[in-house]
């Protein structure tokens, strides 16, 4: 199940390249001042959602956080609706009410994304809980950063997931920073997140989040475990974001050590995988150019859709729409 065939490797690669190109396109156009909401770009972290979500289907569920574009796209969320949402248009996935931080695509099992750190964790657990109460076996995947593990609600969620043996995959993307604050000021070097999960009776796996095939394999093991044991699982992947916490720009210098940045730039998941596939001839330069061209067209079309879509119509009785 976890073997990456040549066909699969190209598929995974294509998805990762597509997400990178979408995020870069958002970054390039952000200064046009038409995307008037915060954006938390996933550049540098694309391998994790691609590798993990390849193991789940449309009928499985996804819940995630503020840095959600990659999760949303890897789960099959509509690119057009995502961009329209960021543009504040009525055709957006949340009708312009949510923006980049509130993505949803129910047809693809994307239940929602929210930016309060750790805030979407229990909602995801609740989705899995509902599935259990309804005697269904669909999987729920929750993405969060290592910062969310500092919230008390994380431990509360681990406990409940374990108590109820929920079919739930916790995916921690550890990019070492919460906005500008490094791990060293937030977590004791002795703190062991895996051990915390294990202490709640939850199986754990870890891997390099910048190695797409490794992510795919580790996530595959975790999903197999969940299906076999009908119990939750915690996986943690190390990674690094290349853009600022929020916004289109390359991270301002100064708060991250230069050597650290240099190391992680060399570990770029897209660069590593491109080199690997080219080297073993799974991918040719021609193919790569075709991929880029195809994705570029798709992105262009999606931006056109977003830009040309109508804005939501102002409702003088907006308060009434708060209630179902």
């Amino acid at each position: 199940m976890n073997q990456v065939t040549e066909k699969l490797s190209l598929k995974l690669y294509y998805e990762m390249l597509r997400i990178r190109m979408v995020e870069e396109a958002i970054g390039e156009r952000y200064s046009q001042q038409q995307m008037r909401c915060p954006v938390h770009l996933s550049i540098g972290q694309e391998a994790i959602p691609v590798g993990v979500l390849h193991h789940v289907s449309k009928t499985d569920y996804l819940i995630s956080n503020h840095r959600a574009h990659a999760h949303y796209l890897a789960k099959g969320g509509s690119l057009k609706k995502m961009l329209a949402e960021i543009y504040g248009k009525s055709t957006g996935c949340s009708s312009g009410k949510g923006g980049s931080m509130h993505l949803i695509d129910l047809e693809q099992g994307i239940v929602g994304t929210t930016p309060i750190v750790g805030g979407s964790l229990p909602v995801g657990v609740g989705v899995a809980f509902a599935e259990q109460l309804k005697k269904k076996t669909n999987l729920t995947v929750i993405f969060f950063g290592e910062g969310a593990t500092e919230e008390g609600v994380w431990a509360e969620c681990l406990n409940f997931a374990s108590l109820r043996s929920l079919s739930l995959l916790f995916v921690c993307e550890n990019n070492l920073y919460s906005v500008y604050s490094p791990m060293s000021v937030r977590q004791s070097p002795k703190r062991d997140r895996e051990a915390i999960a294990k202490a709640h009776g939850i199986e754990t796996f870890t891997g390099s989040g910048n190695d797409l095939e490794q992510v795919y394999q580790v996530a595959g093991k975790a999903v197999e475990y969940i299906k076999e044991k009908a119990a939750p699982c915690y996986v943690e992947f190390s990674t690094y974001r290349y853009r600022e916490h929020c916004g289109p720009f390359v991270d301002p210098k100064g708060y991250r050590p230069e050597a650290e940045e240099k190391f992680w730039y060399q570990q770029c998941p897209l660069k590593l995988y491109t080199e690997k596939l080219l080297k073993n001839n799974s991918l040719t330069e021609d193919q790569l150019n075709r991929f880029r061209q195809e994705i570029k067209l798709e992105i262009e079309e999606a931006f056109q859709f977003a830009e040309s879509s109508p804005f939501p119509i102002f409702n003088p009785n907006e308060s009434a729409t708060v209630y179902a």
Partner: protein
Amino acid sequence: MLNQALFPFLTPMKAQQFMPKREIKFSQAILEAQDQLMTLDPNVYIIGLGAPDPKGLFGTTLGLQEKHGKDRVLDMPISENAMTGIVTGSAIMGLRPIMTHQRVDFFLLGLDQLINNSAKWHYMFGGQNNVPIVFRLFMGRGWGQGPQHSQSLQSIFSHIPGLKVVTPSTCYNAKGLLISAIEDNNPVVFLEHRWLHSVHGEVPEKVYRVPLGKANLVSKGNDITIVSNSHMTLESWKAIKLLEKENISIELIDLQTLIPLDKETILQSVKKTGHVIVVDPDWKTCGFSSEVLSVITEEAFDYLKKPPIRVTYPDHPCPTSWVLSNHYYPTSKDIALTVLKMMNKKTHLNSLTKDLLEQKAQGPLDIPDSSFTGPF
């Protein structure tokens, strides 16, 4: 023990004409509402610390787990925040959770999930999901509940767009409002005052609904309007009884639902009487009473003959010792005195004031009736 004879308003006139009379406790009315809706809708489930406990949350969940099964009535970890998010997630997926907390004070730990997720999910994703949850929260009082077991906090919930806030006051409206709350497609905060659980009143056996957003005109009058909610409606009613010989025509409005607020009923009454007292079982500053008065001053200012008055708890935590808490809670006599002052009826003012102070000094006023023997 309070009974139907003392509180004829517990059953509206219409119902009195057609229903066979049956008296049960407030707690049983709550139990019956949940039982009937769980039978009607397999998606309804109850979850809360001690929800299936031997005392059944003061009798309000007794026997439900035995009848409906362990997956319909669940105990839970003491993780108020996560559990609020978890019921929210389950509601998004189509279930209809009823979450219970034996004191509203503990639920403060769940406010992040309540305010950021439950209240907003429907709106912030463009209306694609509903979040049908009922949060049954108990407001404590008496027997030394003290600063952290006796808060009301209804104004906090009422401030948040996306939440509905319900404050039942009688056995009849407890059942009807709870059924409406469970069937509502939004998160509803259902605040049960602990002193109401043992109140008796007439309750029809069938499934019936008291609509959310509609106040109940408990008694009609032309001289003065009292706007009240929850347990203070009983105190207000007693105040009316105390003033029977004073020749003051008092209109008593029991809000039943704070959000949506039935402004129309309040404004109609105030426009008629020009005098208004708001009685709220909560602190004064930024309390729900402030909202009621704001609505009145914004929309019926010209009709006011006197400045409105609020009867509320004083702005300090509830002290534990009964000697102090006797002065913390306004009684029917405090309300009656306020009415007399506003209407310039000085005849009995002094004697009633003296009587009230004596009563507060005499002995504990920390139980609703003789059946209440603590500890909580």
